[in-house]
């Protein structure tokens, strides 16, 4: 089974965000594969192994540093990659512009399925999978927690998370899928995997070379930090029961929630 995985390099979730103009300060940030994209990479590799062959191609839009995350995915077991290395395009890219670049890169590839994370954990937009699908003219299933391709790779039965439950669908392939937590447990790159990844082919292109001309459709005018939360009061009491009584009283009289 041939698959394409679109991944984004983002700040590690431990990062304390600092603002710099209309973006964030990048000093000291540890960059990693966005968590949901890790599920996408794992699923593609898992399906290749299960279906007894095929190829996993990584596509990533990002500046020079993004190559590290691309290599990590190659070390996990992906076969080759397209790195849309275009800092100027990336800096202004909103989900629309990101989808344009990714779709342009995916278009030239051979695949049965495209996997992406359900959202990047930096901008949290949850837009790119649906937009890539639309640009490729393919069906899209988001929030996938189970993926079972048919033996002939002509269709797949997928389970997606919906509010309060699950929906099972049959989808003809090729199609676009966004990964939700629960789909799988991403593997760690092995040492031999890391060594092999260094020699795997990465096609580096800029947006212009892909023929992408569309600019962003949204623009950030201002960034800010949420107001800092102050510590409140520690409820006093002789024992757990007394503290519970005082808390219940506070919820009743001060918060007025009971």
């Amino acid at each position, binding site marked *: 089974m041939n698959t394409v995985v679109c991944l984004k390099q983002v*700040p590690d979730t431990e990062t304390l965000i600092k603002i710099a103009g209309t973006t964030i300060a990048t000093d000291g940030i540890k960059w990693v594969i966005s968590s949901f994209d890790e599920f996408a990479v794992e699923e593609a590799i898992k399906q290749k192994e299960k279906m007894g062959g095929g190829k996993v191609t990584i596509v990533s839009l990002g500046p020079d540093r993004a190559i590290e995350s691309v290599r990590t995915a190659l070390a996990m077991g992906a076969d080759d990659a397209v790195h849309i290395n275009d800092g100027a395009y990336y800096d202004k890219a909103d*989900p629309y512009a990101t989808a344009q670049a990714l779709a342009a890169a995916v278009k030239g590839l051979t695949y049965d399925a495209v996997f992406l994370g359900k959202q990047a954990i930096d901008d*949290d*937009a949850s837009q790119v999978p649906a937009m890539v699908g639309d640009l490729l003219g393919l069906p899209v299933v988001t929030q996938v927690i189970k993926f079972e391709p048919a033996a002939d790779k002509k269709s797949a039965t997928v389970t997606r998370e*919906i509010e309060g439950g699950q929906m*099972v669908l049959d989808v003809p392939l090729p199609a676009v899928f966004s990964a939700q937590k629960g789909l799988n447990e991403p593997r760690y790159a092995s040492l031999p995997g890391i060594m092999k990844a260094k020699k795997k082919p990465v096609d580096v292109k800029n947006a212009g070379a892909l023929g992408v001309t569309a600019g962003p459709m949204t623009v950030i005018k201002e960034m800010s930090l*949420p107001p800092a939360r102050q510590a409140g009061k520690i409820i006093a009491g002789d024992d757990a029961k007394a503290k519970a009584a005082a808390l219940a009283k506070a919820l009743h009289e001060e918060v007025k929630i009971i």
Partner: protein
Amino acid sequence: MAGTLIYAEVQKGEIKKGAFEIASKAKEFGGDVAACVIGKGAEALAPQLAKYGADKIYVVDGPEFENYVPEAFVQAFVQVAQTVQPSIILTSASAQGKDFTPAVAARLNVGAISDCVGVAKEGDKVIAKRPMYAGKAYAQVEALGNPQVISIRPNALGAKEVAGAGAVEKVAVNLDASKIKATVKSVEVAATTEPDQTEAEIIVSGGRGMKGPENFGMLEDLAKLFGPTATTGASRAAVDAGWRGHSYQVGQTGKTVSPNLYVACGISGAIQHMAGMGTSKVIVAINKDAEAPIFTKADYGVVDDLFNVVPALIDEIKKIKG
């Protein structure tokens, strides 16, 4: 028309509250407010939108709209949008809205601003405020396309009753069946009446300190005492340990929530968790470790063993409620 078109989501045979929130916000923008409601049995529900400012309500009703499948709903909505020609489209950033909104924007060849917690109109432009990095930062964003497509986080704005003209028109849409390729095999929705964590007003959440899946029952009991707008949540530690399903996870790689009350039981308060619930109006932390970071953010802290505090709290609340 230079007004606003809202998408009114139907779930379990009811229009979702989020639809009323975006309808009344659209009314504040000025200009005509059109609503599009899609679903089996939607016609009977449509008039409710007039109470929240809808001047015109387009209804797409039929058995083929019983379950939400993006392609059919997107095609139907886009046809209504082409009739209305709005300058602004508002949707709710519910679970369905997160799937629906970008697909609509892509079909209209514009971008979208998703999951906004505030919107203000400045001239013809809408400036939307949205969290990034799970709430560690906020951005003011402007849409450059026409229409401006914006999804609003449920509960962020509140619904205000305001009368609209409320003319209902049933629309016969022409679906391109060749594009509707995914077929629904089954839908399984838990028989719970609990709201989704992102829409709950009260969340009782458990972390590593819960020690095992069997102990979450008392958190469910506490949530039930708080009423039908309450539900339970979990930290990543509890979810990764397999104690709760991942749909319960609150935090950067789970759900970002903003309830009126968040009760954190046995949760230390990692930065990823705090990002996901930091905008809760009131935070209560129950943890036996006085050094747990969560106490630096909590409005009320109880430093004690949650296995003693939570059952006692349940008793005390029962007493107050009589």
